[in-house]
C-alpha cells in the first residue's frame, strides 16, 4: 500500500538544493529529512534554536536540553549552532532560510496560505508559521491533496490567511504544482493520477506544463 506521507516527503526532498537551509514543519514536512538524496547536504533549522539539526538520538542518549520545535528529543550535527529566539527568528526573518516546508489547510491560486485556523473550530495559535512563510526564500506546501474529500487547493482561501501570496510550490500525492503569476501550473504528475482526475479534486483551475513529467517513484 502506498505510504502517501513518505511519498510526498520524498518528492519534497528532491526539490531541495545542495546547501539549502530548510525549516520543516510538523507532520509530512518533518519526514523530509529522511529522504534527502545522497550527495545533497541540507541544513535543517528549527525555530526553537538549532541550525544543523541531526537525527533523533539513540535510546539512552537523549538530552533534555536539545529538543526540536515539537519538543521531541533531537541532536545537533557537527558544524551546527544553538540560538536564542531573537537569533533564531533573526535568521528566519532575515531571509536566511532557503526553503520552508509546511502543511496547509488551504492554498489558493495566488499563493495565499491558510494553515492556522478553521473558523468555528478550536483556536490553535500561529507559532512561527507567519514568520517562516513571509520571510523564507521559497515556500513549499507539502500536504495530502484533499481533506475528508474536500478540496484544499482553492480559487481563493476561505479560511483566515497565514500570509498572502507566499506559496511557491504545492506537493501532494497527486502531483507537483507551481504557483505562478498566471495561476497554478501542474509540473509533475503521480503515476496513479490523471490531469482530469487532479482537476476534479482541485477547486482552482490548473494549467498543465508543456513539459509535464512523472513524479519519480523510487
Amino acid at each position: 500500500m502506498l505510504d502517501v506521507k513518505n511519498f510526498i516527503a520524498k518528492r519534497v526532498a528532491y526539490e531541495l538544493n545542495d546547501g539549502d537551509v530548510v525549516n520543516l514543519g510538523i507532520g509530512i514536512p518533518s519526514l523530509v529529512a529522511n529522504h534527502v538524496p545522497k550527495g545533497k547536504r541540507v541544513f535543517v533549522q528549527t525555530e526553537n534554536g538549532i541550525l544543523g539539526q541531526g537525527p533523533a538520538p539513540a535510546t539512552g542518549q537523549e538530552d533534555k536540553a536539545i529538543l526540536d520545535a515539537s519538543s521531541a528529543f533531537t541532536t545537533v550535527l557537527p558544524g551546527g549552532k544553538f540560538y536564542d529566539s531573537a537569533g533564531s527568528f533573526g535568521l528566519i526573518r532575515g531571509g536566511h532560510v532557503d526553503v520552508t516546508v509546511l502543511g496547509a489547510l488551504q492554498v489558493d491560486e495566488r499563493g495565499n496560505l491558510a494553515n492556522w485556523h478553521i473558523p468555528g473550530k478550536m483556536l490553535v495559535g500561529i507559532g512561527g508559521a507567519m514568520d517562516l512563510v513571509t520571510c523564507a526564500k521559497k515556500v513549499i506546501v507539502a500536504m495530502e491533496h484533499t481533506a475528508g474529500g474536500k478540496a484544499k487547493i482553492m480559487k481563493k482561501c476561505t479560511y483566515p490567511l497565514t500570509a498572502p501570496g507566499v506559496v511557491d510550490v504545492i506537493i501532494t500525492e497527486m502531483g507537483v504544482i507551481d504557483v505562478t503569476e498566471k495561476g497554478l501550473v501542474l509540473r509533475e504528475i503521480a503515476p496513479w493520477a490523471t490531469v482530469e482526475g487532479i482537476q476534479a479534486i482541485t477547486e482552482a483551475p490548473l494549467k498543465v506544463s508543456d513539459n509535464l513529467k512523472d513524479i519519480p517513484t523510487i
Partner: protein
Amino acid sequence: MNKQKSLKDALSHIKNGDTVMVGGFGASYPFMLLEGLLATDVGELTIIANSMGHEAFVTLMEAGKVSSVITTFLKGNPVVLKMYADNPDSVTIIPQGTFAERIRAGGAGIPGFYTPVGVGTFVEEKKEKRTFADKDCLLETALKADVALIHASVADKWGNCLMRGTTKNFGAMMPAAADYTIVEAEEIVPVGGIDPELVTVPHIHVDAIVKVGE
C-alpha cells in the same frame, strides 16, 4: 550579592496585576516557579509566554490568577480558549518571531520596529502600516514586564545564567525586558563557574535564584 533565595522569598516580589513573562519553548519552562506562583495569593496577572498549552498554564488559569495573555500558541489549553471566546481582547496572539523581537526590543531600548510579518492577516488589525522598499510592513512595539520567570541549566550566585542547547529561547531575552527576574536553576555554581563566553543571561538582569528541587 548572593541572590539565592527560597522559592517563597523569590516569588514574594510578585504583586497583584503584574505582567509576568515566562521563558520556554515547548519545554524549558520554569515549572517550579509556575507551581510556586500557583500557591501564592497574587492574581490578575498578564502572562507573556510562547505557548499556553502546558498544564502549568492551564492550572494557573483554572485557579483564576490570569486576566490576560500575550502568546503565540493556545493549543491544549481549554481555559485560554474560553477566555478568548468570552473576551477576545484579553488574549493577544502574535507571530513567534514578532514575539521574540518585541521582547528583545523591550530589553534593548527600541520602542518600535517594522516587520512584514503579519501583513494581510488578522495580525495587522489596528496596526500602523508603512512601506519599505515596496514592501508593506507593520509597526510593532516593545514588550516589557514587571517580572520574568526563567529556567537555566546553570546559574552562579550572582545570577549569571547558562542556558544549554535549545533551552535559551525566549528566556534569554526576557530578563533584560523585565524589572525583576527570578531564575530557577538546575545547578548553582560559585561566581566564576561559568565561562564569560557562555553566559546566556548576565547577572545584572537577575534578582533572585531558586535551586530546582529545593
